């Protein structure tokens, strides 16, 4: 649901950056989306489809790089990959960890003309 506001932000950032370059058409946009960011990829793609209509991104190819979630155990300090925010430490079993990677939401690059 919030994916639409995010998609609108993506279009704004891309259009501003494109204009700064003196270009008007975006051929490709590369995004970085963390798996722990709270954004659902399918919803994001759908939202982008509506958000790009009538903009410089209308024909742009969307490339999404996902970033795996990583956490650090609050007890033993082990760093491990996670798929859920509540994953326990695989080293010591402690259920309490802090997220250190995977919350990224970024417009990485554009191909413009």
């Amino acid at each position, binding site marked *: 649901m919030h994916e639409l506001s995010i998609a609108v932000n993506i279009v704004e950032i891309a259009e501003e950056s494109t204009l700064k370059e003196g270009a008007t058409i975006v051929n490709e946009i590369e995004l970085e989306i963390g798996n722990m960011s709270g954004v659902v990829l399918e919803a994001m793609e759908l939202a982008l489809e509506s958000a790009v209509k009538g903009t410089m991104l209308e024909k742009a190819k969307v490339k999404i790089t996902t970033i795996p979630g990583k956490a650090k155990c609050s007890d033993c300090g082990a760093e491990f990959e996670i798929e859920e925010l509540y994953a326990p430490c695989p080293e010591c079993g402690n259920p*309490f960890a802090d997220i250190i990677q995977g919350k990224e939401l*970024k417009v990485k690059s554009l*191909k*413009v003309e």
Partner: protein
Amino acid sequence: MCSTCGCGEPGNEVTFRKPGEENTENNGHLHVHDHEHSHDGHQHSHEHVHLQGDEHNHDHSHGHTHSHSREIEVEMDILGKNNLLAERNRGYFEAKNILALNLVSSPGSGKTSLLEKTIGDLKNEIEFYVIEGDQQTMNDANRIDKAGAPVVQVNTGNGCHLDSDMVNKAVKELKPEDNSVMMIENVGNLVCPSLFDLGEAARVVVISVTEGDDKPLKYPTMFESSDICIINKMDLLPYVDFDVEKAKQFALQVNHHLRFFEVSVKTGEGMDAWYDWLKNEIGK
């Protein structure tokens, strides 16, 4: 536009109203973007009218003789604009020693009742201001008005969360005094508001025992981004299957920094601990 909840549909502008105010105007949040580009003999002109934010008028004119594709490194945070404005809100609150809290929950867990009770019990000691976020109606603002605190109702139309820009505008309407508490009641939704920093000092997630005790695992992002968890409707515990210890354990697995208050707004049980925390935070 949004196939799930329809956020951003045209005609669903954000409105800001105080109880007793008639209006359905947009408080001047109309902006007109005018982009004109001229290129290699062809010219496009598009005009977007947005109903949120300040008034902009851009005119761009570019003349080019080349049109080859090139790559730009952008490296920009998608929520950067929201986060930047949230930090401005935060700075304003800090400078005026205002404790700003962002209350989030599913619809019906008792956020508004919690505010009514808190304001009613503490209004002689603490000055409260309230920003009410709902898709539609003035109902919550009217309840807060009756409880005795200045309030602005933000109707998000079909929007599913408050953002830092809405809070910024609502705060300008409220003109809060120094050393007060700004309660921001977000749209009832345990998903979307989690991504949008409003500039609050702490995020307070409210759940009630009439919900499932596995809510923290089902909606982890909200619990992960919160600082305080209030478990409400404790008076109903004998009649439901909610396991308080299990719910707390699940919430801690998602975010082990969470601090809990078990309360019943209805009976007043547990409210003193919440009040002590509030008073202590204002003193910081």
